[in-house]
């Protein structure tokens, strides 16, 4: 790619810009390679920008999770299974958060096994809806789908603005949304189960 662009530069210095069919071809070739040069620039900025931080962060959190041991959160799952209004926030905010943080996508959904059948769809809905809002601060939870957040965040960075505010708000609004989603889905599930039995 570099050789090609050097060649063009030399051509510009020594002779006039080619015209006619060859000229059109040359312009087309330049435009063609320009797409990939720009793409390469973007790739390099991504690899140099967020990738090193991501690797170190992922390593640290992976080690932390291994030292704590995923089995420690099972008690939380049992607590979340209890009926009663005070356990709603545990079931649809705390449990999805901890499950997605510790077990990550997709193993987080295995925490549903501690819940009664009628809560399972709502818990899945709640947990799966949190695998992106968590990415702004804890990208280890779902690195394969990072660009849901990073895609938009890149635009903010280009404007020279900080990402902290957006990441925190994304996480907090995410928690509110998964809570509502859990409640709504639990209600719909209950209605559908009742209808099926009737």
């Amino acid at each position: 790619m570099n050789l090609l662009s050097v060649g063009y530069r030399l051509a510009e210095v020594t002779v006039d810009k080619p015209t006619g069919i060859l000229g059109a071809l040359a312009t087309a070739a330049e435009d063609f390679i320009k797409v990939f040069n720009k793409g390469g620039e973007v790739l390099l900025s991504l690899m140099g920008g967020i990738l090193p931080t991501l690797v170190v962060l992922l390593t640290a959190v992976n080690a932390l999770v291994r030292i704590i041991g995923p089995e420690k959160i099972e008690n939380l799952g049992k607590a979340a299974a209890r009926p009663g209004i005070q356990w709603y926030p545990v079931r649809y905010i705390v449990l999805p958060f901890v499950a997605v943080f510790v077990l990550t996508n997709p193993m987080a959904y295995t925490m549903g096994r501690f819940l009664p059948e009628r809560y399972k769809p709502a818990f899945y809905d709640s947990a799966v809806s949190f695998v992106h809002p968590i990415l702004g601060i804890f990208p280890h939870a779902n690195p394969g789908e990072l660009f849901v957040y990073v895609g938009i965040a890149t635009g903010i960075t280009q404007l020279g603005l900080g990402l902290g505010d957006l990441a925190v708000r994304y996480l907090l609004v995410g928690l509110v949304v998964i809570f509502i989603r859990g409640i709504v889905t639990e209600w719909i599930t209950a209605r559908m189960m009742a209808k099926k039995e009737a």
Partner: protein
Amino acid sequence: MGGISAVLTKIGRSVGGVVGTLYQAGRDTVDTVIRNVIPFMAFISFIIGLILTTGIGDWIATGIKGSASSLPGLLLISLVCALPVLSPLLGPGAVIAQIVGTLLGVEIGKGNIPAQYALPALFAINPQVGCDFIPVGLALGEAEPETVEVGVPAVLFSRLVTGPLSVVIAYFASFGLYSSSN
């Protein structure tokens, strides 16, 4: 002597355990990054290159600008993504959400979409999250087949309500976000 060597063995073992854990964590990380992160970066870089150097960007900008920089427009996007027929199709790998997110990011970077719309946009492009994965996710939670039968439509219908609702919440939560940039 027996006491000392027992202590030494214990120390050696626990240090070895910690180092082993850290090393394994690093190995897992590099594995994930090479398998999942870098391939997507390469793909996204190509798309961004294409958008920035060709006229496609301007074409998309005119299409997106109206819908992505107003609350009703974002609501419309979220409603379409949340349609029970479409949402399982749009879900897999969050590929659609990632591409649309990148497109919006480019337009935000160019100033075509105000920065404070980043937050509601994050929710508008994503009401279909996990809609393709409901039976598998429920199976991971050891759900009965009867629960899966009810759970799939329950989640899909729930999204129709909570998808647009999440955009509204995010819209109000974005007040004061990057407001100095205007």
